[in-house]
């Protein structure tokens, strides 16, 4: 059973084809990685899934619902949440407020309810706050909820971004280079944390990653993109031995040396 399916997805920017006829699927409950050299179209594909870009051709579907014509907020409401390669928190808001914004699509109270302080609105607000605090604890940021996001250290910002994404109660979490800029110890913690997301919250995780130790360490399946084209797909072990992948990363000469024995 696949939670996310892409069929022949193509995304162009003028003459440049960023993603070309990509067939792709994410099995429910798995951890899947997308790798490839810089400019291969990985983040573009993320943006197509979340509705920030519209794919020109092909079909994207999430649990059988077609995503192509939906707005980003509608897609989030379906159960897809994401983080960003370069952290994009709401920097002038506190950590708690960031998580509360993440819960936006799960809350209902509007301008009128808030103004009149209707009991439903107040109860919902209280529950949202409780839940935000739980998420804060879950990512290990307890006690830092009232700090501005911009004042948190780098590693905390990465975790807050994940907590914000979890606020929308996603089924599929898209992580764009979650360990970028981390030292080996922090990277190890992040890997453990990603596994915990699956085991404790039952999430499906789809990540873009450059750190091969992470990719090979936690992925069930790995897909390789190069110039917008899928050049390989398989288990981490298969990918490591694939000559095309080695060529894309290291060049033709290296591929010949490492070639199939």
């Amino acid at each position, binding site marked *: 059973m696949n939670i996310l399916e892409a069929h022949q997805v193509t995304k162009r920017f003028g003459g440049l084809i960023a993603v070309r006829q990509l067939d792709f699927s994410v099995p429910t409950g798995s951890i899947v990685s997308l790798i490839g050299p810089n400019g291969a179209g990985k983040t573009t594909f993320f943006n197509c899934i979340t509705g920030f870009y519209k794919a020109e051709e092909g079909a994207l579907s999430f649990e059988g619902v077609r995503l192509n014509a939906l707005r980003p*907020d509608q897609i989030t409401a379906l159960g897809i949440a994401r983080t960003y390669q370069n952290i994009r928190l709401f920097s002038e808001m506190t950590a708690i407020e960031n998580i509360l*914004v993440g819960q936006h699509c799960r809350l209902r109270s509007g301008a009128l309810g808030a103004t009149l302080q209707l009991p439903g609105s107040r109860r919902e607000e209280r529950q949202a706050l409780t839940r935000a605090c*739980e998420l804060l604890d879950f990512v290990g940021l307890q006690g830092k909820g009232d700090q501005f996001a911009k004042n948190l250290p780098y590693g905390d910002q990465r975790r807050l971004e994940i907590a914000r994404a979890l606020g929308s109660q996603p089924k599929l979490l898209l992580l764009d280079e979650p360990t970028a800029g981390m030292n080996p110890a922090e990277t190890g913690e992040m890997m453990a944390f990603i596994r915990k997301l699956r085991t404790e919250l039952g999430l499906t995780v789809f990540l873009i990653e450059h750190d091969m130790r992470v990719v090979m360490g936690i992925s069930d399946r790995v897909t390789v993109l190069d110039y917008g084209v899928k050049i390989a797909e398989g288990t981490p072990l298969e990918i490591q031995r694939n000559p095309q992948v080695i060529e894309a990363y290291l060049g033709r000469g290296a591929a010949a040396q490492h070639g199939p024995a």
Partner: protein
Amino acid sequence: MRIRLSLRAGLTTGVINVFVILLGLSTLFGNTLRGWLRLGGQAPGAWLGLVLVAMWGGAQARRHAGGKSPRAALAAGGAAGLAHGLLVALFIWAVAGLSERGYPIRTWLAQLTPDVVRFLGLGLRPAVAAVVSMALLMVAGLAGGALAWAADKYAWGATIRSTRARLRTSLKEAPPVRRFSGYRHSKRALIGVGLLVVLLAPLVLGQYWNYNLGTVGAYVLLGLGLNIVVGLAGLLDLGYVAFFAIGAYTVALLTAPAPHGIEMSFWLALPVSVLMAALSGILLGIPVLRMRGDYLAIVTLGFGEIIRILSRSDVLTSFTGGPRGVRDVGGPSLFGLDLSSELYFVYLILLGIALVAYVTSRLQQTRVGRAWMAMREDEDVAAAMGVHTLKYKLLAFAIGAAFAGLGGGLYASRNQFIGPEDFVLLVSINVLCVVIIGGMGSIPGVIVGAVVLKGIPEVLRQLSDFRMLVFGALLIIMMIVRPEGLWPSRRRRMELHKDESPPAPAALPLEREMEVDTP
């Protein structure tokens, strides 16, 4: 090298002094002092001003060029004073000499009135006056240098600071103050007293100040509305006056005898004006809200001008009253009692402010306000977090416009007359200044900002022509000293701490909630 720094300090302050004279500020200073100290004429005060600037030059020279010894300080101050004196003396010699020969200086330099020439000339021949003034300013420079040295030597600055700190702590530690701040409801009590003062003040202020208070109040309403659009949602709207105009014209046209003769009751017309403004906010919003930042600012600027030009156009004269505006706008009355005096309007506007401030604070602290702030921070990410950005932008525009419409309706009714000239671009810019100077996204900030921006020019009225000059300088200083605004927005503490939160259910409350929502 040292001497060059001193000379430079002297010349810089000398140029400042020449400009002070050219702008007529020294006569203003002289006149003000004459009023306060009951001096014989303006000359002593004006010269005092020039001497003070020269002393400042000497002190600057001592700071940049003077050594530790008193002699070095005197040398630096003296050199600065000499340069300063030479420059100003040359200027005085030229001005006095030219005017003695009957040359019409005022055609070129309007502020050099005969009065100014007389006080500069000291009643002496031009050359003598130049020498005397040079000597005077040089002594002033010397004195400045010496004073600066003494201030350093005896650590006057530190003494003043420590005295101030001591005073502050002793005030804080004073038994009555400590008892009060220890009292649990002291903050509420302070707010209560403040409210009481605001409520009672109009009764004793008299018509003139009540009129000004009403104008400040109208700006608070506008500021609170724009605060939602710019401060919370981050949409730069430079045509905000359009909604103010729509509110004002709605009330005016519905209640005035001409041009339509509807003469509706004020109480009915006011909600209609709020509604009309909100509606026009949405109508403007639909086409322009896909734009961002600078582009949005320019389009809204154009919208504001369109509304003003439409209101004064000849084609629509039969509908809007054209350039001559609308007269005899109806006022509020209750049970046959006429409530349209300045005093009642102050209370009416205060009531409006209370309502608007309440709505704003409720929205700010809940889901809608958070969505706005998220959009202000990063629109794309806000959308990715599930915020329907178009909807929330329209909501911000509609609510902001509704507040402006309320302000406009009250303003029209109080003034009993409105015309196109009440709704010029400057109003939009002033309201934006209110929000920025007060503190973006802060309700008390907007109120303080409006009081400062509309109140200070009234207080500065005795400076006559220089009112706006001084006001502009104050604005610049304020923004340098407090770039985040006079009363920046504060965040409530929200994180529930372990001891306060209700006992959590035994195992993994998170997961359980997930299952409830995603069966």
